[in-house]
């Protein structure tokens, strides 16, 4: 990546080496991706960030690079794009990691991949905790179906559950020495950390406890208030609903105790020094704001932050002409009119090139400003900047290219 402007202002902060200024405004430390994935002490890498910023691609690219540099890697992806799933051979949803074909094993590494199936993960937990008869009852309950398919937070909870399972398995059998985890495409990056707690406290909620109470100590709690409540519910939704609800609530009580304990364990695992969080953002205001919240949160929860990846950044400029200079030149060209008859010249071509250049410089300036704002609030966060590929980077070749860009970042 070439650097063009203001190189004189570069100073370092923190360790790591400083990247080219065009990519790193201000005083950013470069995120050394290869050092991170090569370090045998790195056991888990969690890629987080708000939706649509390229977390899945980043996780897959990191995992592939680590594997081709000799690690025994498993990557847990969530909602991968169809093409990405195809190239990793994980279109079949069987909820277990499968070897990825086509990786270079020369360095002694390996790569397995899987895509999270939230519902099966949930169903498996139910099946493992309840008698077959009871499990069947739960799995068919309409409230359970919502809980396991579209409850806000279930996907995050299940990602944690699966991470816990894979980690326990890897510890036991030595299958992997690096787990790379993608996180669900939530609107807020914080959801990944908050959802399990939200789900737990929901299942512990007042209403659930209230619904459980009559089953345990009959009528004692059938206060006037609850009467009103059930009356209203029956009126709006019909009587069947209450029956379904009570079945569901009773079932929850038996199944989910163990759940919470495991979620807490996984949470503790995330605080372990062998875990590294990589926060992914696009150079857009919303994405960087979410990234900033997340960085603060990791600090607050004493979770280890490796750094920030700014993905799909504008392509680097190649000439030393500012946006203003280029636009001014376009105006002069237009005022001057046709090319002189006695020499070369093609004003529409040249004006077009200058416009393209001005556009590119404007985009970069906006992105640089956004990153500078992030940097001012969160100094010293190591950062890698990955320019947008012209082509979608979904095949293994594309992922390798993204991995290189990450490492050069």
């Amino acid at each position, binding site marked *: 990546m070439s650097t063009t402007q203001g190189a004189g202002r570069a100073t370092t902060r923190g360790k790591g080496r400083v990247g080219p200024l065009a990519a790193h405004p201000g005083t950013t430390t470069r995120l050394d991706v290869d050092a991170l994935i090569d370090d045998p002490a790195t056991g888990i890498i969690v890629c987080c960030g708000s*939706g*649509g910023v390229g977390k899945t691609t980043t996780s897959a690219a990191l995992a592939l690079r680590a594997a081709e540099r000799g690690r025994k890697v498993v990557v847990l992806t969530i909602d991968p794009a169809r093409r990405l799933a195809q190239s990793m051979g994980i279109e079949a949803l069987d909820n277990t990691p499968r070897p990825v074909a086509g990786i270079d094993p020369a360095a002694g590494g390996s790569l397995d991949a899987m895509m999270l199936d939230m519902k099966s993960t949930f169903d498996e937990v139910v099946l493992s905790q309840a008698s077959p008869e009871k499990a069947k009852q739960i799995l068919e309950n*309409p*409230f359970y*179906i*919502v809980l396991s398919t579209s*409850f806000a937070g279930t996907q995050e909870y299940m990602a944690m559950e699966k991470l816990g399972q894979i980690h326990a398995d890897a510890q036991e059998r030595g299958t992997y020495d690096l787990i790379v985890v993608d996180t669900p*495409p939530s*609107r807020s990056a914080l959801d990944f950390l908050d959802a399990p707690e939200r789900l737990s406290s*929901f299942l512990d*909620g*007042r*209403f*659930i406890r*209230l619904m459980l109470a009559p089953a345990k100590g009959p009528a004692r709690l059938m206060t006037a*208030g609850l009467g*009103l*409540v059930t009356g*209203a519910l029956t009126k*709006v*939704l*019909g009587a*069947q*609903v209450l029956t*379904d609800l009570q079945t569901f609530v009773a079932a929850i009580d038996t199944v989910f105790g163990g759940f919470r304990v495991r979620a807490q364990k996984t949470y503790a695992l995330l605080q372990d020094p062998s875990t590294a969080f990589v926060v992914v953002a*696009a150079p857009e*205001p*919303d994405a960087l704001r979410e990234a900033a919240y997340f960085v603060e949160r990791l600090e607050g929860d004493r979770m280890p932050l490796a750094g920030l990846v700014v993905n799909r950044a504008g*392509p680097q*400029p*190649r*000439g030393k*002409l500012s946006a203003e200079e280029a636009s001014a*030149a376009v105006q*002069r*060209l237009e005022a*001057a009119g046709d*090319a*002189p008859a006695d*020499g*070369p*010249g*093609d*004003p*529409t*071509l*040249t004006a*077009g*090139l*200058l*416009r*393209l*250049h001005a*556009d*590119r410089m*404007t*985009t970069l300036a*906006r992105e640089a400003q956004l990153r500078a704002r992030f940097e001012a609030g969160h100094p010293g966060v190591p950062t890698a900047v990955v320019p947008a590929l*012209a082509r*979608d980077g979904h095949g293994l070749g594309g992922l390798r290219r993204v991995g290189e860009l990450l490492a050069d970042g």
Partner: protein
Amino acid sequence: MSSDWPRVRLHVVTGKGGTGKTTVAASLALALASHGKNVLVCEVEGRQGLARMFDVDPLPYAETRIATGLRGPDGKPPGTVHALHIDPESALLEYLAMYYRLGRAGKALDRFGVVEFATTIAPGVRDVLLTGKVFEAVQRNSRNKGAIEYDAVVLDAPPTGRIVQFLNVSDELAGLAKVGPIKSQADTMMTLFRSPRTAVHLVTVLEEMPVQETADGIAELRAAGLPVGGVVVNLVRPRALPDETLALAGAGKLDKEAVRADLERVGVSTTKALVDGLAAEARDHAERRALEESQRALVQQMGVPTYELERLAGGIDMGALYDLAATMRDQGLG
């Protein structure tokens, strides 16, 4: 140009995440609010994206005047744009108050955590509450006294992957309530959503995944009997170079000497690096444009009206929203 959607009262804006749904919904509202028309723009995902877009404080559960519509070329005074942030808890309490006069019981519901329960896990209830409020805003009746009557409502909707489920409220509720008032209300709502007074617009960018998702989304909407509106192609690269030049640029065959001469002529001192750099940028641009072109061809085969919005290098602010609104009106979307 006149609107392609004169009969539509409810414009639903969906699309793959991050392609510009909120941007398009906001500027469409501005475009529709010319000629003295009053427009409401709603959001339902609890993100306060509209407040951010219009640079105002977080929106409450109340219709808030947020902007003046785009001024028409005819100079007629524009209308107003109101915005509403719909959250399911408030919508449930309002619904209960409006239809059941559940004053005390409503409060009790909240106290016992039923509101939270109903709006998070009761199958379909969350969506029926959100869409129910949108429906109410489109089809105002006497129960909501003193409320503004809007000429059009724009919904910044959930993404393509969820849109059919979101609008298909009666099916969604089927797992819960097979009969009863809420079921029949859902059926009434479906009548509006399936009618020509609704249009579901899909926002996309010219990349493989979003275009594929758009095609899938259109097929699903059609299968569910929901009216497909237009495809809004967002973040289109500026066409700075004419087609012939683009081909030369892509092949690395630009006449660099001509470029150098032009630059010198207007007082830009050139180096080989500068001219080579511009040519390399043009080549890069040509490659991206070629990919866009192949995706554009796919979009055009979808058989729905398409609209194109340029990628604004400076990002989105109020001025940019009005610019996009003007483009939409010129193209007949708004």
